[in-house]
Structures are given as C-alpha cells and as structure tokens.
C-alpha cells in the first residue's frame, strides 16, 4: 500500500501531486520551523530549502530533538536538513548555511518558492520581504515564545476550488429537464404494490409532489411557511404504511425544491473580476478566468452547472441507478457546456487554458469555491484598533510583535537578564502586563511542545495553501498554551 494512503483519502492523488511539486523556503531554524519542515517532508512535499547562518549550540539541542549531540559546531540548517531528509527520500531537503537576511534582500533567491516560512522577523523586515515575494508566494511567520505563540499568513489572493463542503448535492427540481421528468412520469405510484411503493426514491416523490403543487398553484415553488406546510402535506399524503422511510426522506428534503441561489460570495467574485484585466490576478489567473466563464454560463443558462452528486436514499437498486445516471448525464452535459464557454473565453483573451480535468473539477465544485483576499504584514497595526476583539489574545499578539522587534533591533536571540527588554515589550502593549509577562518570562526560549503545536498549525496552513483545498485562516492566529485556546484575528476578505 502507498505510504501516503492515509492522506490521499483526504486530498486525493491530485492533491498529493500538488504537494509533490511544491517548493517551500524556510528562513531561520527554530524548534517551531523545524517541526514545520518535519510535517511537510513526512507529507511528501517536493522541495524545502532551510536557511540559517548559525552553528548548533547546546541551547539548540535542548529545544530541538533533531540536533544530535555530536553535531556541535556544524551549521544548524545543514544538520536539520540532513536529518529530516532521512525521513523521506521522495522529498528534497536542502540546508543553506547563509544568513536569512541575505535571502530576504535578494529577490532572485526567493523567486522559485511558493511558500516562504519566517520566524521572529520584525515587522519592518517582514514588510521588506513581503514586497519582494507577494506576487509569487504566500508568506507564513511562526513565532513561539514560552507558553504562547502565533502563526501569521500573508498573501494577495488565495483561491480554493475544493473547500470540502459537507455535501455537493443539488437536485435542481425547480427547473426539471425532460429526462428526469419523464422518468418520474413513467412511475404510477397508485398502481404500485406496497413493497414497490416503499422503494421509490424520494427524488421521484418530490417531483410528483411538485407537479401536484403546480396544479394547485400557478406560481413558483412553495416559499412562505404556510405554503411549505401545504407542500409537505402533499408529500405526506403519499404514505401507505406508517412511518414510510422514503416518504420521511422526501419530507426532510422538501426544502430542496426551492430555487437555488448563486451564493453571495460567488456573486461578489463575479463582480470583482468584471471589467478587470484577468492577468492582474497573477497566480490566480486560471481561477479567475474560470470564474469569469462561470459568470457567462450563469448569464446564459440562469443557473450554476450541476455537480451530479446525489445522496444515498431509500430505493431499489434499479431505480436509484437510473436517477444517478440521469443526474450524471446532466452534470456531464453541463460540464461540456461550461468547458465550451471557458475555452471560448481563453481564446478571446489569449489565455493558456486549464487542463480538461481542472475544468471538470472546477465545474463540479463551482457552488463551493472560495477566494481569500489577504492584507500585507503592516496592516497588522490595524488589529490594535479593534476594540471588540478578545483583549487577552490581542495583548499576546502585541507582546510577541514587540518581542520580535526587540530581539531584531538588539541582534539578540534571548533577553535573559536583560531588564530593558521587559520595558520595551511593555511599550508595545501598554495595558496588558500579564500577557507581556507570559512572553517576557520565556527569556525568548521555546517550549518544545508549544513550538510543535505552532509548527503543526503552520504545516496545516501551508498544506491548504498548496492544495487549494480546505480553507486557511485569514491572517493571524494566536495560541495560548495555558488555556489551550487559539484566537484568529481576521483581517482581509473571504468570498464564499
């Protein structure tokens, strides 16, 4: 069996392929970034470069399990890279004995990475890095101090095709097409024996109820509460035996006859791309050209393409198979029509089209696609102005940013015995002495288990960014290990 079996069950072979072709750059070795790299390499990332100019010290060994006792004096990045490489020979792990600042100031060195991981960078330098990479990469910073820490993500746009919704089922009963209607009409409920009647799929019961509804009312599907009640009563009247399962399923799914709306976030995405030069979306060009095609599809057919997914339902095998076939055929037709619209658009705009399977994947998931618009690192400062956010987490955030700043300005890795550090941290978060204490008491040292938690979260986020599956958090997540709680300071926009 494949060693990635347990994760391919989550994100499919295609997702595993995205990981395999991803390239990450890690600037600075700490326990947290080491944990991050370990998680990504085990998951099968294609390439990681780890950059650190320092040699292994006694202190490193106590914070990181990967530093063996016979490596004192060797370069940290190379020691870590060599060890982590041994975990998975399908990943490529490179250690570069360089000062991370050298990378930060050299755009050519940064260009080939899709995700860049930093740690404890002061905001100014983070901003400098951001300016060099924002068009090509996602930036993730991990800061771990004693029993608190945070993970921050910076990106211009991030798009998600498969957000892993609970269900993609869409019946489109408000707008019946001939195949499904004539299948339903071929069934004469009255004429059936009880056993057969109990095995009629609820989709058919809903269609029949809807036909009866239309005979009684000449407007659209039931919408008001009394109308919905009446509609459910029509369904209920099909019942022959007490608590008949398929009838109960139909009642539970009665809401599905209403006219499905284009989700609000999707409408906004339609607006955002309107009139834009699609090339402005940079890395997300393909996604937004698919969005534009989707808008054209909706304009033409007045609905989104069908996913073709159906839930299991009480039914005999043949009846269920027939319905599945009808829905799959319809979804396939929709996908073909969508592809035609899209390819036409690409030709007009002179764009390189996505692959057949990418187009189909987008079409199947179109109702649940998402886009996140991020903000640059210096927008963090706005967080301080948000009075409604949880104040304890906000002060941890401020104290950590202050700690990063202090260490950076003073060229330090610790403030052990340094009284002015506490004063400096207090300046950053004037009113929250307790939380400053949580950071200051750490002497800037990492608690391994706290770093492992943060490295785990950062790896989940990097994985989600790489896969374009699942939804990353927006901006800043603060962790308090004393409470075992996190808080996300949302900054940016989510379209879903």
């Amino acid at each position, binding site marked *: 069996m494949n*060693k990635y079996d347990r994760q391919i069950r989550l994100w499919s072979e295609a997702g595993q392929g995205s990981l395999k072709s991803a390239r990450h750059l890690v600037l600075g070795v700490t326990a947290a970034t080491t944990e991050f790299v370990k998680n990504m390499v085990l998951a099968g990332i294609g390439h990681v470069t780890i950059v650190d100019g320092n040699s292994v010290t006694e202190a490193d060994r*106590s914070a990181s399990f990967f530093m063996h006792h016979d490596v004192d004096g060797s370069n940290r990045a190379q020691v870590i890279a060599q060890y982590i490489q041994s975990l998975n020979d399908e990943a490529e792990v490179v250690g570069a004995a360089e000062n991370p600042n050298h990378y930060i100031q050299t755009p050519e060195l940064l260009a080939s990475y899709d995700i860049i991981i930093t740690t404890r960078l002061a905001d100014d330098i983070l901003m400098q890095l951001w300016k060099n990479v924002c068009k090509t990469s996602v930036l993730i910073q991990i800061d771990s101090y004693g029993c608190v820490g945070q993970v921050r993500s910076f990106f211009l746009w991030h798009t998600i095709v498969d957000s892993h919704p609970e269900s993609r089922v869409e019946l489109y009963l408000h707008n019946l097409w001939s195949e499904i209607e004539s299948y339903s009409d071929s069934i004469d409920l009255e004429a059936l024996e009880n056993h057969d009647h109990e095995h009629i799929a609820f989709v058919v019961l809903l269609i029949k109820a809807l036909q009866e509804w239309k005979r009684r009312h000449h407007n659209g599907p039931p919408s008001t509460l009394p109308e919905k009640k009446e509609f459910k009563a029509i369904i209920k009247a099909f019942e022959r035996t007490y608590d008949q399962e398929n009838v109960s399923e139909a009642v539970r799914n009665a809401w599905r006859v209403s006219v499905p709306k284009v989700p609000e976030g999707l409408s906004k995405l339609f607006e955002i791309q309107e009139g834009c030069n699609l090339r402005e979306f940079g890395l997300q060009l393909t996604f937004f050209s698919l969005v534009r095609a989707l808008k054209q599809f909706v304009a033409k057919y007045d609905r989104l393409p069908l996913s073709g997914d159906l839930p*299991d339902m009480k039914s005999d095998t043949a009846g269920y198979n027939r319905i599945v076939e009808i829905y799959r055929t319809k979804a396939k037709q929709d996908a073909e029509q969508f592809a035609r619209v899209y390819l036409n658009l690409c030709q007009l705009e002179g764009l390189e089209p996505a692959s057949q399977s990418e187009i189909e994947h987008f079409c199947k998931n179109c109702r649940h696609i998402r886009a996140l618009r991020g903000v640059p690192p210096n927008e963090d400062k706005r967080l301080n102005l948000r009075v409604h956010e949880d104040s304890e987490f906000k002060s941890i955030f401020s104290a950590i940013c202050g700690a990063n700043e202090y260490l950076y300005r003073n060229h330090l890795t610790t403030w052990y015995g340094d009284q002015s550090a506490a004063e400096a941290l207090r300046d950053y978060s004037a009113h929250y002495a307790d939380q400053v204490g949580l950071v200051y008491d750490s002497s800037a040292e990492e608690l391994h288990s706290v770093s492992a938690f943060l490295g785990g979260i950062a790896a989940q986020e990097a994985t989600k960014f790489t896969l374009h599956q699942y939804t990353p958090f927006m901006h800043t997540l603060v962790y308090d290990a004393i409470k*075992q709680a996190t808080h996300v300071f949302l900054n940016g926009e989510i379209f879903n």
Partner: protein
Amino acid sequence: MATRQNLAALRVLVIDVIDMDTIDVTNLNRQFLFSESDVGKAKASVAAEFVNKRVPGVKVVPHVSAIQDMSDDFYERFNIVICGLDSVEARRWINAKIVGLVDDNDPTTIRPLIDGGTEGLRGQVRVILPTITACYECSLDMIAPQKTYPLCTIAATPRLPEHCIEWALVVGWPQWHSELFDADRPDHMQEMYERALERAKEHCISGVTLSLTQGVVKHIIPAIASTNAIVASACCTEAFKLATAIAPPLDNYMTYAGNDGAHAYPFSLDARPDCPVCGGEALRVDLAKSATLSDLLESIAVQAPKASISAASGPLYMRNPPVLEKATRANLTKPLSELFESGSELVVTDATLPFSLRVTVRFSQDDHR
C-alpha cells in the same frame, strides 16, 4: 508517537511505552521515529530505541503488548498516563483501569489520564483527573457511532459501492470461507475487493476500488503528520503542566478543527454522578436470604449480561477459563447466605464491559418472595 518526542525534549526522565502493533508502510506519512527499513518491526521498540539514542538522560522502556495485558502493579508505577488509542473499546478500558486504581484515602493514586485523538484535520485532547473531572465513560454518548449499513439494504437493494463491500464482508465471506477474514492479509483483501467488484457489476454500481474496500472493511480513519503534531504536542503541554505544576491543566477538553480556518477550543465536560466508572457508588441489590447465586446474576443481567462474580474471599462464579467455570458452577444453585455475609461488596466482571462493577448485596430477613 510525536508525543514521545515532545516529552523527551521536555526532559521527562522515564517513559514506558506500550503498543502491540507493528509498523506498517501507511504509518510513515506521520512518523519520524520510523523509517522504511523498520516496516514490520514493533512500534514500541523502534520508537524507544530511537529516543534513547537521540536524547541522553531520558529512558524509554518499550512494552510490545496490549494495554489489557498489563497488570495493576504496572499501571501503579506511573504518575501520568498518556494515550493515543485507536478505538473506543481501548479508551474505555484504560479509563476504567486508571479510575479503578484510585484509593480515596491516597491522593497519589489519582493518576491524570491524558487522551488525544485525530481524524483528518481535526483532533481533540482531554485531561481526566480520575474521580475529580469527567472521565471517558461519562461522555460516552458524545462519540459518534461508527457508520453502519442496514443489512436489508446490503442484501436486497445495494446502491452504493460501500453496500457491495459490506455485503462481501458480512454476507459473502462466511459463505465462501470457514476461515475468518483477516484484513491484514493481502490475499484476503484482494479477494474481498474482487468479490465486492463482482457484486457491484451485477447491480450496475460503479466506484468499488481496492482502496475503498480497504477503507470500508478496516474502518480507516485519514491521518496526517501536522494534525498528529498538534494533538500530540497539546498532550505533552498538559503532561508538562501536571508534572511541574507551572499552570493548571486543561479543564478538561479541547477540540481542534483545521478544515475551515483553524480553531482550538477548550471547554469543560461535567462528570456524571451515575457514571458506571467514576460515579462512585456501588450498585445495591436486595435479595432474600434464600436466593441463589443464579438469582443474583439474573438481577444484574442488565448491567452485565455475561457476569463473572467474586467476593473478598475469592471467585464465586467464573465463566472463564473452562476449568474455573467447572469448579465454580456448583455455587450457582447455593443460597447466597452460604457464600458471603449480608452487606458484602462483590465484584462483577464481564468480557463485554471494559470495567468491573461493584455490587453490594443485602439479604432481607424474611423470604417474602
């Protein structure tokens, strides 16, 4: 396993690790203590050897064994128990064991139990302080039941590929083989897949694959390195708090979800006074003096349908092993008063229960039944 790494880096001195399993290739996507050359070796031994070699001053002692095979003496040696078990049964068992070891007069017998688990991008961590906080058994109804398919569907009206696989497993296999199905045998799995595929073709159902067959019959739960690291590290932070008293432990449950954003959310579960494991009070049964041991077993059949029962003096009726069953069978027809005194506390065990039940039996003076 990541738990072990964190604990070692925190300089906890002695760690005993129990695991009966051997390393499978599918463990490697989340295991840095194992490499491909370790496949087939015992997990506990490889992990222990790795940490012992890497972290001077820490001693890891491996036990390649089922948790159920370790004695009370063994569990009494520890201050903290951490588990990352893969089944409800095993969790119920260890919970009942650790709660059962509490002596009300000796606070050092309250051994914190830290439990972690993951599924995909989600996970949870809980800290159980036996007899103080809610125990695992207290919140048993929180656990989602395993997905099952009605027999009538799999037999008569299959619709999904899963129905075909379940049919091959539940209906088909016992007809074709006298040998029990073994999910770890590749030839068994291959045949299961082929039979399920055949069934699916007969019913024009698509989607049966070897991977899906494995997933259904082995109840495979997706697992990734990063989620395991998150949960394992939170377990270690809790162990660290308990060992050093630098901060109060988690009270008493934290869920983590990374599917949509990322949230670690702590909350407190309440202990149930009527919890059969930590609820405290023994079950009280009143019976006539002339009642027999059979009558007693009948009166506790709801709580323990296949009970074995002992008094302080020794076993009264044991269902296993057969020798002991034979030796104690005669007691079944004896009046209780011949076996023990009124008000005695008896211990009831049952193979279907992960814990023993304490029962106090009082004799009513007259036989009014």
